């Protein structure tokens, strides 16, 4: 009941007119970002963070807007999947399987509407799950000591490569690189580390600069290399003919997908890609031979879309309660929290209750806004898909420049951003994942602080790090998280590839 009271207060925050306006703006921009191929939610949120700063928004308003961008981007990913057979981001991949065939059969409008409804249901289920689970988890996390936190951070790194990640050693390398960048600056005892006497480095390297560089600039460079801009025939959108029977048909799929997605999102390392994947495969199993999956079955659109959106809200659970993000985009949102001087984690639920519950309420409201935006206004987003990327990406890069410049008003940071962009490009080429680097940057100071505290308590005895049952449990999970991708990863990746190759290789599929 306590939760309900907080939630009502949260609605009070979220329904304040200016917060509502920024939520609407975020939802719109997010859908746009998600719909455009090549710009994922992580990119979108990363680029908009500096802007949110330069606007001088209040913490809860900034957070509400960017959460709406996040949710919107997850909605938007499906538009290019359905109309172009190009997933806007990885989790939207499974939506291509039945969404594009539906569009080919002249049912693009239905596919878009069904996916919007399924996204809504998935998000709604996951948001309710978040409301129920987050306070419990936060209360549990309050029993963590510094040693447990240190182990928890290791767990986060170990699982961030994700079950679908490729080489776990590269995840470790990436995490180290991020943590190393985080040690630059003056440490808590007042010692200068790796500053080389440069005044600008005394405060450390601002992770917003690193994030925008790694995501936005490296994306531009990748685009130049691939030149994926060639126009692909876009499906025409017909007039919407959706009956109640159609909605009833996809309802069970959406509910199943949403629940599965939520679980995938909460579990560390699983994330939205896995959410949409299991949403699809289990839907196929549940419906059995009666379905015509891969040939435009509406349930094949609803399942993964609900899973995808369920997972993205689910990923907020560990981010909000433990301060440990489960995906790239939530890592970027975590960066926002830290730079707003809010320490994420269990204490946030007591110290910044208004912000947490305001954001959760905003997520609920955002879902309704997105549903309203997405059914009648889908035509606008469809039109915007025809903006050629060769104009779009340079403009996005400029926005990144403006955003970073307007935070500090010095060009010093811009050089750093470009350097991070080039580094991001090289690292992506070497298949070094970028998200652990970001996480290292974000969590580095906290991790070291907890190590220090643990050592202070134990008087320098390292065994304190694995002295409690909870800590040992976390270490074991971390080890499993690191080893599991070796065993399960190849199988899962092959299955996902087979599933998507089936339509991509389909002669009618293009």
């Amino acid at each position: 009941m306590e939760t309900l009271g907080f939630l009502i207060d949260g609605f009070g925050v979220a329904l304040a007119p200016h917060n509502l306006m920024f939520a609407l703006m975020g939802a719109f921009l997010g859908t746009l970002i998600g719909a455009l191929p090549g710009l994922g939610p992580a990119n979108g949120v990363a680029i908009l963070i500096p802007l949110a700063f330069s606007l001088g928004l209040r913490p809860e308003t900034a957070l509400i807007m960017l959460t709406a961008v996040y949710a919107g981007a997850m909605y938007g990913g499906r538009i290019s999947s359905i109309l172009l057979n190009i997933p806007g981001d990885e989790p939207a991949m499974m939506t291509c399987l039945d969404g594009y065939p539906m569009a080919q059969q002249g049912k693009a409008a239905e596919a878009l509407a069904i996916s919007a409804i399924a996204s809504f249901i998935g998000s709604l289920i996951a948001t309710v799950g978040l409301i129920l689970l987050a306070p419990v988890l936060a209360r549990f996390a309050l029993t963590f000591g510094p040693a447990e936190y240190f182990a928890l951070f290791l767990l986060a790194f170990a699982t961030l490569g994700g079950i679908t990640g490729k080489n776990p050693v590269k995840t470790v390398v990436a995490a180290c690189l991020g943590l190393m960048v985080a040690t630059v600056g003056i440490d808590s005892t007042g010692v200068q580390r790796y500053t080389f006497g440069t005044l600008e480095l005394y405060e450390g390297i601002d992770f917003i600069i690193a994030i925008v560089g790694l995501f936005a600039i490296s994306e531009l460079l990748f685009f130049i290399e691939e030149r994926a801009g060639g126009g692909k025939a876009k499906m025409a959108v017909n007039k919407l003919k959706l009956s109640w029977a159609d909605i009833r048909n996809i309802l069970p799929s959406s509910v199943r997908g949403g629940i599965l997605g939520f679980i995938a999102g909460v579990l560390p390392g699983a994330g939205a890609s896995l959410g949409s994947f299991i949403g699809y495969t289990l839907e196929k199993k549940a419906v059995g031979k009666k379905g015509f999956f891969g040939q435009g079955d509406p349930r094949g659109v609803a399942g993964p879309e609900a899973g995808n959106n369920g997972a993205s809200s689910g990923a907020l659970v560990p981010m909000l309660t433990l301060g440990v993000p489960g995906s790239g985009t939530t890592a970027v949102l975590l960066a926002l929290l830290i730079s707003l001087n809010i320490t994420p984690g269990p204490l946030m639920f007591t110290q910044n209750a208004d912000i947490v519950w305001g954001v959760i309420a905003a997520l609920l409201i955002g879902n309704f806004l997105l549903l309203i935006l997405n059914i009648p206004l889908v035509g606008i987003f469809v039109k915007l898909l025809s903006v050629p990327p060769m104009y779009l990406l340079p403009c996005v890069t400029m926005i990144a420049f403006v955003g970073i410049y307007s935070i500090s008003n010095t060009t010093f940071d811009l050089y750093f951003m470009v350097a991070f962009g080039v580094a991001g490009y090289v690292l992506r080429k070497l298949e070094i994942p970028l998200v652990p680097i970001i996480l290292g940057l974000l969590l580095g100071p906290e991790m070291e602080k907890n190590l220090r505290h643990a050592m202070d308590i134990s008087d320098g005895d390292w065994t304190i790090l694995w002295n409690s049952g909870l800590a040992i449990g976390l270490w074991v999970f971390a080890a499993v998280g690191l080893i599991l991708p070796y065993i399960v990863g190849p199988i899962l990746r092959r299955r996902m590839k087979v599933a998507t190759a089936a339509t991509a290789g389909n002669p009618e599929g293009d």
Partner: protein
Amino acid sequence: MTFNDRIFGVLLIVLAVAYGWGASQFPEPFGGAEGIAPGTFPTLLAVVLGLSSLYLIVRPDPDNAWPWSRTGVELIVAVVVLVLYAMLLEPLGFILSTTLAIGTLCWRMGAKVLNAYLVGAASGVVVFLLFNFALDLALPLGLLSFLEVS
């Protein structure tokens, strides 16, 4: 071919050694009663990075192709444009430098020259107006500062 990971692994080991050496140079804080010194955490990182780089050298992944030749040149052009953009932002002012940077990037990505610079100019002006008037944040005017409304 498995050169990428090997070369990268060697570079990382160099980095790990340099970083670890740096960590050993940090002064001990006064008192020294603390559990860990400023250098402890970096030393741990250097060891972990060193070990995982060794693994990369011993068991490298297959290479991704690097874009030599034309695409490589385009990439370098893009990076140079971005660096120049950062350099010229203040002396030339936001509108002019944006026109040049965005225009050049669009053009190199395959847009027609005129269209490219028109898009550059338009986006520069729009963003400038938006920031300076709607959002009340000053972007540099540079050479165009004679336009300033005083």
